[in-house]
């Protein structure tokens, strides 16, 4: 028996499994999209509408509104936000070299939230021309800036000489989250009634506010951020060996880190801005994928985008049918599904935080 012949095919297996997963997940995403359009509080179903369209019957006003103005933008938003959260989780974990680094856990989400709250409360004080210029983009953009600032700060604090201290990162994340929370609290205090109402809508972590205007405002930024993150695969693989080694194998580490931080901040920031805090997608999705097909970031990032979109779309379906006609905040659904997985990671891999 020669070891080379024996193990070479198995070696390819993990990579080809990851590549096969691209297609499997893409198929599953289509199914999730169909499910999301099929079910809801009303008895409008996609299959009925398709049958109607085939027969050439006109759709009723309600049917059109439900399908085109409610379910479709909500589906688009869910897919975008889910992909954004999962990809930024995977990219951030690669950047920090730790599977526990999730934008939500280490304070990036809180920073983005602070940006969004700033925009909601203080946006009114901006000069009119600037407001006219930013329009719908003001809140997502402010959230992006908040996320960006906190990611850079976090990296500065927790990374010395090219290696990241996980304990420092988690502690800095707690401090950052507390600081952002406190500043947000001050803003809430000075907010007037209407702004408070806006904040309440925003903070519930829901896709109920999805609209085409929001999708159009958030979509391009999220797509750009995901696109940039997908380019990082080889660089993040190298970074797994440390910054010095990454440079030795030909990666422009500084540039790669800047791109990763920008992409994470943009994806997280915009996702937070349009949907409030939705937790655990960023940590659960990459972890499951690493178990299934290995940690190679060249395939992991794309798979994370697909699985993140699938999970959030399905979580949203759950959120809007279990207590219909009311609905659960989707953050509750993802937390119920995600928190146990997070604990399981901690239980089965105790060495993570110390290493």
């Amino acid at each position: 028996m020669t070891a080379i012949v024996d193990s070479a095919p198995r070696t390819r297996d993990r990579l080809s499994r990851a590549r096969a997963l691209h297609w499997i997940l893409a198929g599953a995403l289509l199914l999730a999209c169909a499910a999301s359009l099929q079910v809801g509080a009303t008895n409008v179903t996609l299959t009925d509408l398709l049958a109607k369209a085939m027969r050439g019957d006109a759709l009723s006003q309600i049917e059109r509104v439900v399908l085109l103005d409610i379910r479709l933008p909500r589906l688009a938003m869910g897919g975008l936000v889910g992909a954004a959260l999962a990809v930024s989780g995977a990219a951030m974990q690669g950047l920090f070299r730790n599977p526990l680094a999730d934008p939500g856990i280490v304070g990036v989400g809180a920073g983005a939230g602070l940006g969004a709250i700033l925009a909601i409360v203080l946006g009114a004080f901006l000069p009119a021309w600037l407001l006219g210029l930013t329009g719908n983009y003001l809140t997502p953009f402010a959230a992006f800036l908040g996320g960006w600032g906190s990611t850079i700060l976090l990296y500065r604090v927790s990374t010395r000489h090219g290696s990241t201290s996980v304990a420092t990162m988690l502690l800095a994340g707690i401090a950052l989250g507390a600081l952002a929370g406190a500043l947000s609290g001050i803003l809430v205090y000075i907010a007037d009634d209407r702004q408070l109402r806006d904040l309440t809508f925003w903070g519930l972590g829901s896709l109920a506010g999805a609209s085409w205007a929001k999708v159009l405002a958030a979509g391009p930024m999220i797509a750009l951020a995901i696109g940039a993150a997908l380019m990082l695969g080889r660089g993040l693989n190298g970074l797994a060996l440390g910054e010095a080694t990454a440079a030795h194998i030909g990666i422009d580490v500084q540039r790669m880190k800047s791109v990763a931080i920008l992409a994470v901040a943009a994806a997280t920031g915009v996702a937070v801005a349009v949907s409030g805090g939705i937790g655990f997608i960023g940590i659960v999705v990459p972890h499951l994928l690493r178990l299934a097909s290995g940690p190679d970031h060249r395939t992991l990032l794309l798979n994370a985008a697909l699985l993140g979109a699938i999970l959030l779309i399905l979580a949203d379906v759950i959120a809007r049918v279990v207590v219909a006609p009311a609905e659960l905040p989707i953050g509750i659904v993802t937390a119920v599904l995600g928190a146990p997985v997070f604990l399981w990671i901690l239980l089965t891999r105790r060495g993570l935080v110390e290493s």
Partner: protein
Amino acid sequence: MMRGAKGVAACAGLWMAVTAATAGAQQAADVLSMGGAVTEIVVALGQGHRLRARDATSTWPPEVTDLPDVGYVRALSPEGVLSVEPALILSEEGAGPPEAIDVIRAADLDFVEIPDALTADGILRKIETVGDALGVPDRAAAMSAEVEADLVDAMADAAQPEAEKKRVLFVLSTQGGKINASGTGTAADALIRMAGGVNAVTEYAGYKQITDEAVGLAAPDVILMMDRAGADDTDHGGADDELFAMPAIRLTPAAQSRSVIRMDGLLMLSFGPRTAEAIRRLNAALYAQES
């Protein structure tokens, strides 16, 4: 005073029964009512049978709780709202999120927002708006006159000489030892004044977390809280001990005399047909303790 309150309640009940009987029962149930006061008004106008669904804050009268619940009025799901197939939506001010309301308005139905105001006139205007929307303006006018007289009566009875007015601290919650109290401009503030009291906190507007020392400075004679159980006979002894043991409250006159009033939140804060009753009850609770 208690006798008066009971009398009015009895009258209102009789009147409701009569109007309900005369109302045309043939109309379809196609109204979604959102907001506690709005729903109370619909039922009081004898239109309860037209209700198709309600929001989470609509819990009075008790029979409306059997209706499907579309959730919290400020976090609506547009499809959830449309799924109950309302032809008319009556909504209190501030329903949201705005995007959801835009979509709901785009669907083929009537959406009427009922203006909110924390005054007797505000309540009357709510009644008239709801009556117009439901196509029963005469009934609304009658009810409005009735409610107005009742309110005027209740407020006149409740009036106190300035010097004898009690200082009332409305506590929204004491979660985690932090006291969230009402400042000015709130429903609680308005009701306290209508019931012949003085809001102990006037330094800020809205419901906010208040520091322990500010509670001391406010020197409330009475603490007013929401009774979440909604029952009068619940034993609050333990809760009272806990409340008066809080450092902020321990030194206030209210704690010395162990004065705490608990009332149903919807009754107190919704500013609807039962506000006169709320005024009477609060007034009675405030000033009956003297003797």
